[in-house]
């Protein structure tokens, strides 16, 4: 193993100045593009949906940029490096989930809605109760996801920029938040989309280059890379087979099944993913978007497999764990091992760009939901002019940006990695059942919608609150800390870390029960929704400038 790396690994590798310079270049380029995009951001459809004028390919790349968060890029590579097969197992749920979006959701949603998920869910229901519920769910999912991303930025700063002081990390989180606010306020959905496209291009290029590099060291044989990982790993051959993380007990096995269910059903219910389908002119382009997204995301997780085992083989699990950032440092350390400070700088910049692109997408989604659903359609009963609504959306984005900076600073030392899994669980339990019922069940009605959204949302959040991720995990003798978010208390009674196995069936059940206990049915609106969703007749058209 590289002796230089062993000497340097416990502190920081590479050149923080170089990392920051490359990231600064990314910010400069994207800000210019965002400002150019802002010239064509005039109407509400421009701000929320990029004028619906992106091609399927552009949108598909942007979806990949939106979806492949830092947790995917750094987390999955690191997980494969440390626990091998179980990390790979985890990554696959994120990919196959896209088939739900392709086969059942993307095109029908594009044809039916306008700007938000609530547009579709409230389409044939009484507006105010359903929009309120759908907006609360949208805001919850976006907020959980956003907080996890912002808190992750703190750790990333320590790892990549050698900023270890509390103040320095806080300032960096604030800077990330401010750049994100600029993207969203100035560029709207068009600017955000371009940031995501550029980031996806850099991420996949960088990961592809590293994959090629790793494979070239092992005679282009995946098997040889894996054998290299086996000899470097303290777990030995065990990293090739399932069980290192999820195989501990029957409980951990069931817990993984619960997680897998939330991943596979949650993706097509993530509001920030759904909103991206409104940025294309037709359902056919929405279909192309998903095909591009599936191709790029699939390619990326194949790269992750090589990079994870490659990081184990070339960097070594002990060095990864010893580095600041721990598991998340696998990909950056591998970059340094392969291409020195320059490649590390590039990968670091990509990691930051990832956070920026993802938080910008979440912020525009949350601001759209508040302004369009809650402010205009619920409070003002749909009587607000489009320009005034966009003004509210911009103010909301500013507020969300401020809240996420404060939240990110407060949460940065907390163990809140579970928030991403919670976002998927809520999306799968509250949103997906309601979307599927809305699109395919004629009998479905207002009470069913409201019950399935709140039923899924409340059950997943409640179960998480009383799960071991929040309180009651055993104290690790080495660190003296519990792996739970809260220390020194134990009010957990739900045994699993992931609520999906219980909350997803509950979401479907409440939707059914609510529907059957209410006699309401709007046949005319059902006809409109079904015909519109499958044919595109009456669907929103692209903006022509």
């Amino acid at each position: 193993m590289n002796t230089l790396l062993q000497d340097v690994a416990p502190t920081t590798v590479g050149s923080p100045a170089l990392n920051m310079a490359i990231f600064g270049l990314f910010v400069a380029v994207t800000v210019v593009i965002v400002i150019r995009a802002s010239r064509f951001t005039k109407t509400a459809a421009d701000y929320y949906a990029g004028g619906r004028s992106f091609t399927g390919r552009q949108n598909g790349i942007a979806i990949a940029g939106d979806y492949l968060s830092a947790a995917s890029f750094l987390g999955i590579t690191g997980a494969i490096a440390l626990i091998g097969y179980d990390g790979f197992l985890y990554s696959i749920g994120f990919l196959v989930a896209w088939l739900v979006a392709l086969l059942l959701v993307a095109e029908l949603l594009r044809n039916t809605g306008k700007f938000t998920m609530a547009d579709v869910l409230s389409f044939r229901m009484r507006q105010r109760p359903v929009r309120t519920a759908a907006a609360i769910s949208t805001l919850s999912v976006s907020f959980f996801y956003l907080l996890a991303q912002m808190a992750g930025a703190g750790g990333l700063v320590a790892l990549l920029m050698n900023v270890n002081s509390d103040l320095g990390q806080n300032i960096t989180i604030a800077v990330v938040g401010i750049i994100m606010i600029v993207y969203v306020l100035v560029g709207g959905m068009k600017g955000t989309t371009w940031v995501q496209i550029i980031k996806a291009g850099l991420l996949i290029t960088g990961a592809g280059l590293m994959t090629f590099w790793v494979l070239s060291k092992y005679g282009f044989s995946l098997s040889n890379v894996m054998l290299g990982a086996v000899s470097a790993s303290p777990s030995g051959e065990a990293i090739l087979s399932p069980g290192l993380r999820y195989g501990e007990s029957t409980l951990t096995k069931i817990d993984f099944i619960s997680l897998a269910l939330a991943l596979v059903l949650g993706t097509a219910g993530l509001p920030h993913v759904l909103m991206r389908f409104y940025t294309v002119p037709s359902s056919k382009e929405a279909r192309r978007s998903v095909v591009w997204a599936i191709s790029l995301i699939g390619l990326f997780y194949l790269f992750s497999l090589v990079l994870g085992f490659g990081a184990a083989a070339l960097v070594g699990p002990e060095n990864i764990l010893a580095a600041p950032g721990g598991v998340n440092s696998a990909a950056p350390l591998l970059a340094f091992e392969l291409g020195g400070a320059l490649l590390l700088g590039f990968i670091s910049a990509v990691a930051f760009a990832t956070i920026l692109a993802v938080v910008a997408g979440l912020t525009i989604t949350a601001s759209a939901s508040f302004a369009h659903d809650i402010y205009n359609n619920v409070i003002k009963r749909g009587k607000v002019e489009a320009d005034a609504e966009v003004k509210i959306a911009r103010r909301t984005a500013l507020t969300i940006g401020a809240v996420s900076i404060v939240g990110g600073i407060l949460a940065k030392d907390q163990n809140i990695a579970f928030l991403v899994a919670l976002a998927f669980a809520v999306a799968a339990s509250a949103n997906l059942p309601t979307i599927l019922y809305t699109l395919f069940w004629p009998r479905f009605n207002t009470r069913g919608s409201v019950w399935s959204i709140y039923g899924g949302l409340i059950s997943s959040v409640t179960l998480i609150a009383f799960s071991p991720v929040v309180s009651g995990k055993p104290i690790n003798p080495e660190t003296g800390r519990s792996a739970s978010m809260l220390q020194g208390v134990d009010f957990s009674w739900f045994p699993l870390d992931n609520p999906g196995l219980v909350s997803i069936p509950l979401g479907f059940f409440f939707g059914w029960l609510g529907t059957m206990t209410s006699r309401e049915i709007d046949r005319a609106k059902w006809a409109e929704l079904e015909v519109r969703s499958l044919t595109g007749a009456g669907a929103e058209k692209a903006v022509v400038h």
Partner: protein
Amino acid sequence: MGVMDERHTGGIPIEEYEAVQQSPEFQELRTRYRRFSFPMTVAFLVWYALFVGLSVFATDFMATPVAGAINVGIVIGLGQFATTALITWLYIRHANRKLDPIAEQIHYEMERRA
């Protein structure tokens, strides 16, 4: 831009949708869509569930070597990538050939009448 009306139907009268919904062309479109998408969704979910189930409950089977460091688990895992690509391709072909022409025809007729 005027007041945004969420019940705006794109210039097509709302009664028109009910008539179209009852038409044989639309019924055919719905059947073609559902006959492909619903069973395919069930199929990939079962296949994914099988992969997850074997990975957590049949670890010894999944650890069976195939070639070099590659074992059954990795092969089935890579198989998930392959089937995802295959289903995507099949759906695109189905949609282009069987769904789009009829959907576009109905859409065109409705806008022409409106």
